[in-house]
């Protein structure tokens, strides 16, 4: 922001030798007074000869400019401008201005300065007027700095918001792809599975009666494995759908809900199923609660190794949540297995025939996480049989 423009009138400064000399005037030493003022003022003067060598200076503010040296050696803001400065000799009505600069050195810095160079034809000197930047007070500088800092922070916020938006878009895209993938698994892959079963039946029927006996068992195994895979695909689809639908909250009678679940649940005759505690009416999404209770109770029944014993389902309201325990006296779960059981298709005893694909507890855990509930399991089969699953279910308890 340097410019050439007509200089401000400065007759006293334009006379270098007189500026520091005394000139008696009616008993007043105006020259000395002026020199005194300049020494203490926020401005100073530097006179240079036609070759831009510093010959005189006045004012503490220009102490950093050494005498008898090229001006641009110390006034770095004018470095490289010799030709432009020299051109002022042809245009003495013009000036060169460099506003608001600070010249830094290892031992300190000049104050923030405005520089103005003019050519003084009468004295055949260049005059550099140096003034402290007064238009911007320290307070204004601080305010400007704060505004800049805020500007940077705002820019960072905008960038962060954009990054979050990009991540969200990516997440949405990934979810959409996952949904499409789940659909492909559940639908497109199930069809060939079905076809395989039909083909095995056709194959069996097409074989002469004498040859059927030899392959019947194998074909039955193919059909069974095909059915099992179809079931797994169905379960996987159910798993992928959890949490992707907004569940409506409504008034739920939890005693009626648990009653309907247990009533229709098959179990060995020797296995008792108790419903205990206080089951209140609550406001909650019924479908996820149904899924959690149904799967935990079913899990306790299915994995009971003797078929003789007890499964107990107990509820206790506590503030705005239900504490529900599903306890059994089955074989229990070793502590080292207690995290594995919540993974899809994981079974602790694959050799023991149990209905289902092994996704029940994975469905429970995902549902619990989506509903803001918690699920813990406690079991120490080395000490005693049985396992207890505790669900802490958030809801509005009515009574």
């Amino acid at each position, binding site marked *: *922001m*340097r*410019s050439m423009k007509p200089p401000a009138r400065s007759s006293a400064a334009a006379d270098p030798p007189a500026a520091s000399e005394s000139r008696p005037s009616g008993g007043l030493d105006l020259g000395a007074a002026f020199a005194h003022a300049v020494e203490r003022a926020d401005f100073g003067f530097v006179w240079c000869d036609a070759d831009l060598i510093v010959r005189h200076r006045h004012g503490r503010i220009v102490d950093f400019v050494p005498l008898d040296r090229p001006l641009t050696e110390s006034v*770095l*803001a004018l*470095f*490289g*401008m010799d030709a432009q400065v020299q051109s002022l000799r042809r245009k003495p009505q013009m000036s060169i201005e460099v*506003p*608001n*600069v*600070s*010249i*830094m*050195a*290892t031992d300190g*810095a000049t104050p*923030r300065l405005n520089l103005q160079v003019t050519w003084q034809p009468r004295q055949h000197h260049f005059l550099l007027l140096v003034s402290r*930047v007064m238009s*911007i007070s320290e307070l204004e*500088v601080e305010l*400007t*700095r704060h505004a*800049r*800092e805020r*500007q*940077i922070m705002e*820019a*960072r916020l*905008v*960038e962060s918001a954009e990054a979050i938006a990009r991540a969200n878009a990516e997440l949405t895209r990934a979810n959409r792809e996952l949904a499409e993938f789940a659909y492909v698994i559940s639908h497109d892959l199930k069809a060939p599975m079905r076809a395989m079963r039909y083909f095995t039946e056709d194959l069996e029927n097409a074989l002469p009666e004498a040859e059927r006996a030899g392959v019947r068992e194998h074909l039955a195994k193919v059909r069974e494995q095909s059915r099992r895979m179809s079931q797994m695909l169905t379960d996987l689809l159910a798993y992928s759908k959890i949490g992707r639908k907004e569940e409506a909250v409504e008034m739920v009678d939890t005693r009626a809900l648990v009653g309907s679940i247990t009533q229709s649940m098959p179990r060995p005759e020797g296995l008792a199923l108790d419903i205990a505690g206080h089951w209140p009416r609550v406001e909650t999404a019924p479908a996820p609660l149904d899924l959690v209770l149904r799967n935990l109770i079913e899990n306790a029944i299915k994995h009971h190794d003797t078929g003789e014993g007890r499964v107990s389902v107990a509820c206790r309201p506590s503030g705005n949540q239900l504490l529900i325990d599903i306890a059994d006296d089955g074989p229990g779960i070793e502590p080292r297995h207690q995290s594995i059981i919540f993974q899809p298709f994981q079974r602790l005893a694959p050799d023991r025939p149990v209905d289902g694909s092994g996704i029940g507890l994975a469905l429970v855990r995902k549902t619990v996480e989506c509903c803001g509930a918690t699920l813990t399991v406690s079991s120490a089969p080395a000490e005693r049989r049985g396992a207890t699953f505790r669900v802490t279910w958030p809801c509005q308890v009515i009574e």
Partner: protein
Amino acid sequence: MMVRKIMLLGEIGVGKTSIVRRLVLDRFEADYKATIGTDIYRYEVLPSPGKAPFHFIVWDTDGSFGESIFRSVHVKEAHAALIVGDLTRRATLDNAWKLATGFANALPGRYLAIVLNKLDLFPPHVDPEVPEAITTSEFPQVKTSAKSGMNVKHAFHEAASTIVRRG
């Protein structure tokens, strides 16, 4: 002695002052203080890339100048420019690209490099994302950290070497 003027340009807060203070004073101040106006430094490039001693007059400019700096006479006698961007703020890199093309148009043939600063804010195994316009451009690029001093001298020494080589 060879003395050349080099401009430090870039958006507010990208680390121009930190770079020049690391270069000249070998110091880094964590407290951010925006440059109001222009700060001018002298730096001797050692060892000199030529036969004679080489000095840079470094103009650390106020980031709020933006592209208006090319309409002023600030850059008129500049021999080189380092355009600084903040690797953690994509917008400053886009702006660095604009300033680089602005400088190249205003002073064709002058040395120009893009300095990608604040590398220290990334884990060592992470390669920060840089706009394609910059990575595919003909302008030299250097990733720096004013905080650690990484590549700061290198950026200026490269500029000095190129200026000496071009004569």
